[in-house]
Every structure is written in C-alpha cells, then in structure tokens.
C-alpha cells in the first residue's frame, strides 16, 4: 500500500502551500485583501498539516504535526520592503505572478487529496475519506480564490 507515501508528499505540499501563502501575504502587505486572505488561507493548510500528521501513523508514516512557516529574519526584511514597494504599478504584476504560484501549488495539493480520497474509498477507511473530502473542498476554495484574484488583477497589472 502506498497511501503513506502520498500522505508524506501531501504533508510536504501542504506545508509548502502554507509557506507560499504566508510569503505572498507578507510580500504584498500593501494589498490588504491579498495580505489578509493569504494569512487566513495559510491557516487552513497548517490545519491540514496537523490532521495529515495525526492520521499518517495508521499508514506507517511518522510526520511532524507542527506546520512550517514561522516568519524568519529574511521574511521580516521582505515585509519592510513590501510596505515601501507598494507604491508602484509593477507591484501588481509581481503579485499576479505570486498568486499564480499559489494557484499551481493549491492545484497540485488538490490532486493529491483526490488520490487519497479515491484510495480511502477503495479500502473503506471512513476517517481518511472524511478527512480527504473535507480538506479537498477547502483546497479547492484556496485555488478558486487565487484564480479569482488573478482574473481580477490581471488587467490592472498588464495594462498600465
């Protein structure tokens, strides 16, 4: 059974997604919606990380329940930059590219959850299926948010 392996990947990818969301939130503090929602949606992925770690033991994996993503000194510096850099139209384009990163990462996490969900049905593991269904729905909302924000900001970013 390779469910453990996929859970390990997923654990890694959710951590990466959370970290990306926090980085984007930090870099674009001048765009309040992206900042606020980035922080908020990162919490969802951090919660997923904890829940994956909790269930992974049943599949022979020992994963760290503590999410990554505590801001480091580099990130503090980035924040300083972001608050001062927000007065240029170029910051829109950087933001759209960063959101694209969020969207791609969320999409790959979404696929992982899909795979886990399928496997959980096959082995009739109710707990895993419930987790996969719930988290998949939330990951989809993360991706949809990033995609919507890209759509909304592209004109302003590209046509200046």
């Amino acid at each position, binding site marked *: 059974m390779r469910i453990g392996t996929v859970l390990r990947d997923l654990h890694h990818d959710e951590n990466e997604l959370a970290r990306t969301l926090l980085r984007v939130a930090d870099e674009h503090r001048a765009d309040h919606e992206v900042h606020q929602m980035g922080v908020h949606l990162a919490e969802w992925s951090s919660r997923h990380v904890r829940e994956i770690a909790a269930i992974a033991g049943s599949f022979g994996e020992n994963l760290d329940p503590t999410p990554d993503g505590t801001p480091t000194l580099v990130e503090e510096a980035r924040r300083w930059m972001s608050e001062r850099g927000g007065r*240029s139209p170029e910051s829109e384009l950087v933001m759209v590219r960063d959101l694209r990163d969020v969207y791609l990462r969320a999409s790959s996490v979404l696929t992982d959850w899909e795979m886990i969900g399928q496997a959980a049905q096959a082995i009739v593991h109710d707990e895993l299926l419930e987790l996969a269904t719930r988290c998949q729905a939330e990951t989809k909302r993360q991706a949809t948010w990033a995609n919507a924000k890209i759509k909304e900001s592209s004109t302003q970013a590209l046509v200046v």
Partner: protein
Amino acid sequence: MPTEDRIADVWGDRTPYPRGGDWPVRVDAHLAADLSPGEVDRWVQTASTLHSNGDAFDVAVRDGRMVGVRGRPDDRVNRGRLGPKDLFGWQAIQSPDRLTRPLVRRDGRLVECSWDEAMDVVVGRTQALLEEQGPSAVGFYTTGQLFLEEYYTLALVAHGGIRTNHVDGNTRLCTATAAEALKESFGSDGQPGSYTDVDHADVIALFGHNVAETQTVLWMRILDRLAGDDPPEVICVDPRPTPVARAATVHLAPRPGTNVALMNALLHEIVANGHVDEAWVTAHTVGYADLEKTVARYTPEVVSTICDVPAADIRSAARIIGEAEALLSTVLQGFYQSHQATAAAVQVNNLHLLRGMIGRPGCGILQMNGQPSAQNTRECGADGDMAGFRNWSNRSHVEDLARVWNIEPKQIPHATPPTHAMQIMRYVEDGSIRMLWVSGTNPVVSMPELARMRSILSQERLFLVVQDIFLTETAQLADVVLPAAAWGEKTGAFTNVDRTVHLSEKAVDPPGEARSDLDIFVDFATRMGLQDKDGQPLVKWSTAEEAFDAWRECSRGRPCDYSGLSYDKLRGGSGIQWPCTDESPDGTERLYAGGTFWASPEECETFGRDLETGAPVEEQEYRALNPFGRAVIKSSDYRPPHEIPDEDHPLQLITGRTVYHFHTRTRTARAPELQAAAPDVWVEVSVTDAQTYGLAEGDLAEVTTARGEVRARVRVSGIRPGVVFLPFHYGYWDTGEGWRPGDHGRAANELTRTDWDPASKQPIFKTAACAVRKVADGDGTPSPAPDNTASAPVAAATAEGVER
C-alpha cells in the same frame, strides 16, 4: 408642536395604532422664524436626503429661497412625519460658503475659473490617459446622495463610454452588505419587505440597527405600534444602550465581531425547537442540510462564551422569533460594518427562509440602506454593478444592456467583477489609476485609516476631480473642483429602503454657477465626444425627465422595473414602490410573494461568492446548486475578528452616528439647531472601563489604535464593558487645519483599519483594538454628546438631558 422641541423630543408625540391598523397621520413642519404659512409663495414636493428612510415632504419657498418644510400626509412612508434632520437640515444649502464657481489648481493653489476652463482640463486629462494607458487609468467614486437620473448617466458614461471597470459609490461603506446579502440569498438585489410590515408584525427584530437614530420616522411607526393594542415584541442586537434596546423585550449586546456566532445560535435554537417550516424550506430553498450541520455546533452555551451574552437571553430571543406569527427583521451597520458582515446578514435572511416568512404582510426583511439614494446607486450601476441588476457574468445580460445602450457588448467591461472602492484606492495608491473623479462624497474623512487615505489622495501624480456642494476635506486636495447643485436646486427621482420612489422637484436656483450633477456628467460626455455604435451621442438625454424615461426602458423586465412610472405619476400623492409596470401600475408592496425568486441561473444578478474567501462562484457550480431558482440558504462558521484586543490595546472600538448628524457633517453642521445638538466629537466608555482607566464624564481622553490617535471628551454611558464608541461625523473642515488633523486627531477614521468583508467588500469599522487614557481632567462640563439618545449618560438618568 413647537419645532425647537424636536431636538430634545426627537420622535414627537405618539399616535398609537393596533396590529393590522392604519398608521395615523401626523404632520410635522418647521418654518423659518417669524414666518406664517400664509407668507409662503409655494410648496415644492420632495423627500429626505439626509437619511435613507425616504420621508416625503414639501419645501416652502419665499422670494426664491427655502424657508421651511412640511411633511406630506398622504405619503405611505411617513404619513406626514419628519425627523430633526429634515426639519432643520434644509438650511445648509443656503449657507454662504457654498461652492459657486469651478476651481482649478494653479501653482499649488485652487483658484476660480470658468466652466469651460475646468472642463477642458478634465477632458484633456481623461483623453490623454485613455490614449496612454486606456480605461484602467480612470476611476469614478460617487455617492448615495445623488438622484437616480445622475447615477444612471454616470454608469453609462463610465461603463459604456470610458469603459472603465473602476466605478463605485460610498454605498460601499454603508449598504454594500445589504446588496450582497440579498444577492446571496435571493439571487438578486431588491428589498423583500415593506415599511407596512411594521403594521402587521408581532415580532420585530433589529440586528445592529439603531433605527431610532438612523431612520427616526420608521422608529416612530414602531413606537406607535408599541403604544397601541396588541403591540409587537422587539428583539435588539446592539452593544450600545440604544432607544431600541431600551424598548426591547430581549436585548442582546454581543462582543463586537461575533455576530455570526450569535446568529448561528439563534438558528440552532430554531432548528432544535422544531420551528423550521420544513415543507416551505423543501419547496422554496436549497442548502438547508448544510445549515443544519453547521449550526449544530452553536449551542447557546458555546455561543454565550464567544459573544459574552447570557445563554438564557439567546434562548428567549430564539423562542420569540421561533414562535412569531409574522416576523419583521431589519439589519444595519452593526452587522454591515462589522466582521463577517455578509455572512451575518445572510443568517438574518436564513431566519426568514427557515420560518417561511417572506412576501406576506408582517413577514418582511429590511436589509437597510444608510443613504437616501443608495438604492439607486445600486440599481443604476453606479456602484460598479451592471445597470438594472443585470449579471456581469451572464453573456445574455451583457448583450441586453448593450442593446439598450446601442453599443457593442464587448465595449462594456465585464471580464471581471467591478473594482470596489477599497480596491480603487489601492490602485490609486500603486499609481495604476491616475485619475479619480469623486462626486458627492468625502473619502478623506469617511474611509478607514485616514493617514493612509490622505497620503493616497494627496499624491502629485494623481489627477483628482471633486464634484461637491462645499469645499470638503477631499475637495481641498483636488486638482479640479466642480461646484454642484444641491437637493432642492434640481429635479430628480430617488428610491428609499422599501423601494418607494419619490420625485424631488427643483425649488430654488443653485448658487452662482453651480450646476446639477446630471448637467455635469452630460456635459463631460458631450465634450468627450462619447458615441454609440452608430456614431450618435452615447448619452441621448439632457434633462432629468428624459434620463428618467431612459432608465424606465433600461429597467423594463428587470426586478427593479420602473417602466410603469413617470414624473407625472410621481407628482402629488404618495411615493410608489417598484416594480411598477403596466400589470402592477400602483407598484408592488412586497417581493417574493409565494416564495418565487429571481434566482434561476438565467435570471439571477450574481452566482454569488464564497462568503469566507470572497471568490465568485462559477456559473456551472451555481447551476448545479440551484437549477430551479430557489432561495439559497448559505451557512457560515464563526471566525474570530482579524484584530483582537491585546495588552497594549485592550478595548474594542466601534464607530457610528448620532441622530443629529449625517456623514461628515457637510450639511448638518451648517444647520444651527443640529450643530448645537451635537457640536463636537466625544468618546463613550462603560462604567467599568471608566473606573479601570480613571475616566470621568467630561475628561479629555486619548483613544489610540495601531493606526493613530484621537482626542475627545468622555461620556460615561451604558455601552457594554470593553467597548469604546466614537461618532464618525467629525472631520477637519471646520477646524484651523482644513483637511487634516493638527496636533491631535478628531476623525474616528484616524483609528480604523484597512480591512473589508470578503464578499461585500464593505470596510470593517467596528472591531479595532484600542486603548483609552486620560489626558486632562474635565472642568465639570459634560461631554458634547447628546443626552437623549444612545449616547445618554449612565448617571442621573437623563434628568439634565431633558433640559438641553
């Protein structure tokens, strides 16, 4: 009744009436001193523009000047009554400091110029920016106080002519959540209820709505029911001891930012007590199963700890609502300007959907507006939406609007949702919007985080046009100032909260060279040479009546159908509620009778948004969810506010209004009676917090948040402990500094945070973490807060207040 009493006695004498009865007439009037009615030359029909209630009245004119007002007894809205702002507020437009000539900035100073010069500058700049960057360089930020004809013209000019997506109104700050909540639940904007539901309801629930001060005449109607036979029970949700709270059967004063938790507890009880009308829910809604699952966790005990409200009170409120025969609910800023605004307002709609109480006498929802013509900002598309509640993500709706405007569908920006006001400001900040045209609003005082707002709007690289009746704080930063005619100096129609359309006729001439907003927008379109697809002028009208007739056609067949209305029909008699068509020539009292909604995928105004992330729902998803156009029950989990009190900022700041003032006081401060009633800023604290922080009535205190500092005199009131209240009316135009603070802040928005509801994009004014400290002892003089309203002093009841 002597008029001076109506400052102290805001709501006047009672005219009790029983449940199901007719609300008696009571005509309120005020004439300038020494005038008798016989000396009035003529009376001119109009309605209120200093709040959203739509009270109908006539203006008295003598020798070409306004000299008084008198309520219209035949009108369905007020039956002759008027509140203090309408009795006295008209004087402001005759103030000597009105703008009378255009101004243009030369060598850093605003100097008078001709209309030709001013418009040449505006048109020249617009054309240059369109050439250089395109429509994304231009934004329009309007108001909730113009007339329908003006919004419709602006929407056409901006969307169909300039083709920019950056159009919004300050309705974003007051009524965006009302619109969004209605769209989310019913598929389209449009107020389901009617004021006449007050006559029939046996339970009236007010959610974050201090109606006694925001819509005084609607409160008079409720007070008259309370004084009559078979009075309704009143439920009040408000952290302040408002007049509504004092009259309530149950008053719930939740911690700011916890409305969704409270609403979920009420819904939990409705479900648990078996008060759901299951047959109705099955036949007319989708989404109930999700709601049932969500609210299961929100028992009164759990929620009691989140909201700091006794569980027993939640239970009694839920029981009263659950057992109501006819429930009327109203919602305003306590929900709209707080955390999780749309999610909370939608739960009020859900109460009605669960109980099957909509579209019948007494079973009304009033998602209130804050401004007199906010409804028109929304329906005409001056808030960025497509005119006539059309759906920007529905191709056939875009094509239909293009047909009405005689332009190609691709000329109407619809690829993305409209840019909301806070995002417009963000684009101005990053320099991608380079021209902003502000009409009838004052963002330098009314938007959150004023230090940021001033730095955005005072940028050299921004071309700022301000169209107003006075030199507001914002106008002082403008590159071009256009002097506008005020209400009473122009003709037009507007629509109140319960869809009642009134005509407001020109009573007097505007001062100097001031021109109506309609004339200004039409002139701009002409000078810009904006054309339709046949090369004819895009704007095909020049008078208000022609604009109104064009709007009738644009609205034909839409939920907000005006096709059966005309100026002639609106003259005399009562205002008329839309939809008004050939089939329903007298208008329509309630929407959604029989549980039929405008929510099918083909008809709906929006497919909705994710209430937590704000992302628009895709069409396919909506089709799967709601193929038959039922009402949508959307549930939501409670999330803690973004800014929670900490050691440095242990209290929560909420901002709001008083009955005597409107917005940033540009008009009400120029009416002597209103200005005297609430002359300066104050800060309300609870008895507990006054003790903790050593504050007494009249002390000078400093309120700080992470954004800034404001100084105000202390009022110790019955507000809930932990909460601090500041009125948002007081800016700087009547201080020495003009448009910004001197040594200390006075405007409440120095302190508020740049943050908004994900779905409605309405800024959050009611959850900032703050600290309060004493700066100086008072000299025994009470704070300048009114004594007879929600700001009443806790001590000595209101014994002193009555004398004021």
